[in-house]
């Protein structure tokens, strides 16, 4: 058999042996290995085909995500200040924990392949359950991240510029209780500020500029090199704890919503892949419990493993590109 690739270590000899001594051998192989499909001659051929097929599928996954990485690069090169500003709204601790969770679940998946190869059924099932737990944990943490952001209206599109209901309610009560106070002097007057008293669309109550809380807690001065010494804060303060903090920050660069658009697009697609991963790992658990896999036949475990590692691999890039922008 003339593989395009150079055969490696010992087991290619099986393939050559399978072909060299005539082709009646095929049926002998088939009775010896019940899992061998009729159109393959040897288990090695079947295994190699499955692996190559999976790698090609992973190539399509790489390009699938790749296009979004290109969108990321284009947007980031257009709005560098937006990305370094927006990044500080993301929770590095949660992102970091999620990275570790995925790495550990990748480890348990790789161990699962190992135990499948060794024919250790119980260990394989345990590893798969651990992987499943990792995937679920990742999604739970992701859920908390998303819900915090959506609560604070840190979202894509025009909604990004609508104060959340909490903020409006708060502003109203403040307005009722106190006379309007002048904005803190530390906040520089925005250049080219919009005229107040613009007609309202919809039935939202008018919110006067003066009653929206000053941006002293927002991540002022962190973006775009426009350092405002008075309102500059450290990263430790999570600005999103204050609803609509982003609308109160005079240093928020234009187009910040684009950061969140690409953030949700990429992490959302990744999250979808995690869900798909849980489904296929679930199917593996069923088959592994039944005892389908052994030293000669563990292809599905291996392929799902490859898929799961590529999901991990994508996250390895997403994490620094979104959470860790200086």
């Amino acid at each position, binding site marked *: 058999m003339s593989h395009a690739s150079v055969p490696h270590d010992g087991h290619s000899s099986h393939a050559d042996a399978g072909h060299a001594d005539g082709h009646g051998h095929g049926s002998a192989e088939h009775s010896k290995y019940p899992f061998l499909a009729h159109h393959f001659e040897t288990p090695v051929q079947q295994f190699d085909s499955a692996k190559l097929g999976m790698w090609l599928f992973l190539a399509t996954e790489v390009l699938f995500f790749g296009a979004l990485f290109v969108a990321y*690069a284009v947007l980031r090169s257009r709005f560098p200040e937006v990305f370094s500003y927006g990044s500080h709204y993301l929770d590095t601790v949660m992102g970091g924990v999620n990275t570790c969770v995925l790495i550990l679940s990748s480890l348990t998946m790789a161990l699962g392949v190992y135990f499948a190869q060794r024919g250790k059924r119980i260990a394989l099932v345990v590893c798969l359950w651990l992987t499943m737990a990792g995937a679920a944990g990742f999604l739970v943490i992701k859920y908390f991240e998303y819900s915090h952001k959506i609560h604070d209206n840190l979202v894509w599109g025009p909604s990004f510029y609508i104060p959340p209901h909490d903020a409006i309610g708060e502003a109203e009560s403040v307005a009722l209780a106190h006379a309007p106070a002048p904005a803190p002097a530390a906040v520089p007057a925005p250049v080219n500020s*919009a005229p107040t008293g613009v007609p309202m669309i919809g039935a939202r109550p008018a919110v006067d500029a003066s009653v929206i809380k000053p941006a002293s807690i927002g991540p002022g001065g962190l973006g775009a090199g426009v350092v405002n010494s008075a309102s500059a804060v450290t990263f430790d303060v999570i600005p999103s704890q204050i609803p609509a903090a982003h609308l109160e920050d005079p240093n928020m660069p234009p187009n910040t919503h684009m950061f969140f658009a690409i953030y949700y697009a990429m992490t959302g697609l990744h999250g979808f892949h995690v869900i798909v991963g849980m489904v296929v790992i679930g199917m593996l658990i069923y088959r592994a419990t039944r005892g389908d896999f052994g*030293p000669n036949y563990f292809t599905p475990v291996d392929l799902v493993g490859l898929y799961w590692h590529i999901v991990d691999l994508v996250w390895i890039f997403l*994490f*620094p590109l979104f959470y860790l922008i200086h």
Partner: protein
Amino acid sequence: MTHSHSNTANEGHPLVGHLVPVSTLVATASALLVLTVITVAVRYIDIGEFNLWVAIGIAVVKAALVACFFMHLRWDRPFNLLVFIGCIIFVILMMAFSVLDTSQYRATQYTGNPPVAQETLDANAPGAPVARFKPELNP
């Protein structure tokens, strides 16, 4: 169906695939965790533009570790490695051309919020003190 643990699959020489020892896998995961800590730490050091490249560099090393050891590429058919590297090259190609194009018309882009964003802002939070100017682009 069950498979006999016959002599066709004695350790180190399985019928198909490559057996990667547990110690290697655990070592790989440990290295990945250490690199994660490093990449988080680097974030807090200001080295200008290099922050991005260091972050990407560490991510590439981590990705290589995952691909070589978890995904068995180190022992796999070379063509599978070629497929993997090839598709990454095509992504880089697409990225290079698109970013090169974008960088050409950076000067003509908006100097403020785009229309729909600004309209929504004016309608819902007319006095919000967010910036309405285009900050200086990083040189």
